[in-house]
């Protein structure tokens, strides 16, 4: 999909936030994979929403 321009700044911000999230998850023993995924997905929707406008 070459017509989609990926903003490097947004990407970098997202990566940092996601890794931080994963670190948090690692300490939460009982958390389901489903829950982890949904949090990450929400984060992506939040961050990318801002730029898509």
């Amino acid at each position, binding site marked *: *999909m070459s017509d989609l321009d990926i903003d490097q700044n*947004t990407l970098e911000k997202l*990566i940092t936030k*996601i890794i931080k999230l*994963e670190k948090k998850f*690692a300490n939460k023993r009982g958390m389901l994979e489903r829950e982890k995924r949904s949090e*990450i997905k929400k984060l992506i929707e939040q961050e990318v929403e801002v730029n*898509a406008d």
Partner: protein
Amino acid sequence: MLIKSIELKNFRQFKGKQKIIFSTNKNDNITVIKGENGAGKTTLLEAFLWCLYGELNLPNKEKILTEDIGNELKPNDTEDVFVEVNLIHHNKEYIMRRLHSFMKLNNGDLDRVSKIEKVLLKNPDGTLTENIDKEEIYNILPDELSTYFFFDGERIENLSKANREGKKDISNAVKNILGLDILLDAEKHLKKIIKEFEDEYSEDNQEEMKQLKNDLEDLRSKKDNFKQLIETKTEEKEILNFKIEELNEKIKKNSSAQKDQQLREKYEDQIYNNKEDILSLKKDIEKNNKNSFPEFLANKLIDLCSDKINLSDIETKGILGIDGSAIDTIIKRGECICGQKVVEGNKNYKNLVEQKEFQPPASLGTIILQFNSQTSEVKKTGEDFFEDFKGKYISIEKKRDSIENLNKEINNISDRLKSAEDVKSLEVKRETKKDELQKIQNEIIQYTSELNIIESTIDSKESELDKLALNNNKNNKIAIRKAYTAELRKKIKKYYEKKENQIRQDLNKQVGKIFKQLIETNHQIKINDDYTFEVVDIDGNTSTSQGQNVITSFAFIGGLINLAKDKLDDIEVTEPYPLVMDAPFSKLSNAHRENVIKLLPEIAEQFILFTVDSQFDGEVEKTVQPKIGQQYNLKMHMDNKKYTEIIGG
């Protein structure tokens, strides 16, 4: 960290209270524990891990209380099981104690009634500080790294051969030491999220999208199937290879067959190389076709084309690179590129206006120029195509002939070997296995190519889906998010691989260094990206030998320990660490043994060696003797029930 002592009470086959004190002395830092197989060496190791981490990796793991003791208990009687480990770390002595109490029930069963785990610190004045945080033990020796200080015989064997288990061992070590599991988790999550976004695409009335999604579902599960198949077959292949190796060794041992076997192996290598060459030539052909096949064909048409229009005539009138609008700009500016003035009515102006007639879109002369120059490019590109292809094709044929001849030779040798009385049955077995191997290899190739086709179909269908999705605004947003997710995953993967490579290279260096110091001859160890390795001599020829296998293991063990230590190390103090392993000395030559003994201090600061009685006398004992600080015997008793007594100290 050094292990000072381990005390057991009623732990599995260790009846009553028994203690081993390990040598922590710098010079004679070896503790030898002799015992037959089954005497309890594995249990001893497990006792250590149970005490530290509460885990037990033995059959019937609930039954930790010694059977004898348990049987003799009367209803409502209780008895304890404990293991206490004394460690020295950063000059402080830690005592880790784990105790479970069991009570005999009326129905004869044993019930665990309490469990205690305690960490104590022994103060310089002899008093004990209680309630030290359990975390401290994890900081001294984390669970996942403990395995790099304990090596049993089987693991040592696997490491020396870099077989499936050995490779897994090392790749897990790299992963653990890397400690970037978080990134792996993120990548895994992102992969699933991509699919979730895809599922969100609203289909509206698009039947096509629905169909594509279904197709993708099918294809993805097919892909997983094939991946699984390929993995299974690869495992089978490895097992077969191993069996064939064994048979080869057996056949080799027979002196009359030895030369033939060596020749056969040489031919097999040559066949392999030829096959690799053919593959690479075929790839070249494919690339060449991509770049010059159409040009080769077009060449034949060029004459036909020049028949139709006389292009050279028009060519001379246009100037490459300048179009009508450029000329307009110059006229407006009033000055040409060369610096001369351009004013309406003057000579330059008139020239420019005239020239404009020949620039596009006013005139095609310029275009013809372009066309002609591209035509010469086409000519050049296409000219060499045929000779190139021919050369490669002939090479391929020659190599195929070679392979056929070599196969014929190999068959002759195999026939000869078959008729030799003493290796007859071995040969037959070997040939059967080779046929099986060939069949599996073909299956793997077939599955791999089908997998590739499926993967590329998945890619193109995903693209199609994305494109269809864009027809709708809501989907647009989703597509963007999906694209970001894919990019995130890509970046994370790239980073992880970069770091993994760094650690692998470190490991390579460490292993190579230790190997060099241990080996008597000029051999070097060459480790590949997938953790397979070769030991090569000065001429680059591969070699293997029993003693060498042990050296290789040591080199890997040493390398792994160094990696683990690196991870644990404090910046200020270089902390010593122990190595607990099955002693492999009997398989080493004298010279190698001496080198190993000399090198031991560099690998670990404390050695706890398990040995089966018969292995450890005579020559071996002499070399190792000076460094033994403590010695124990695990004596098996076979009275009522089996139990082990620790003798010595």
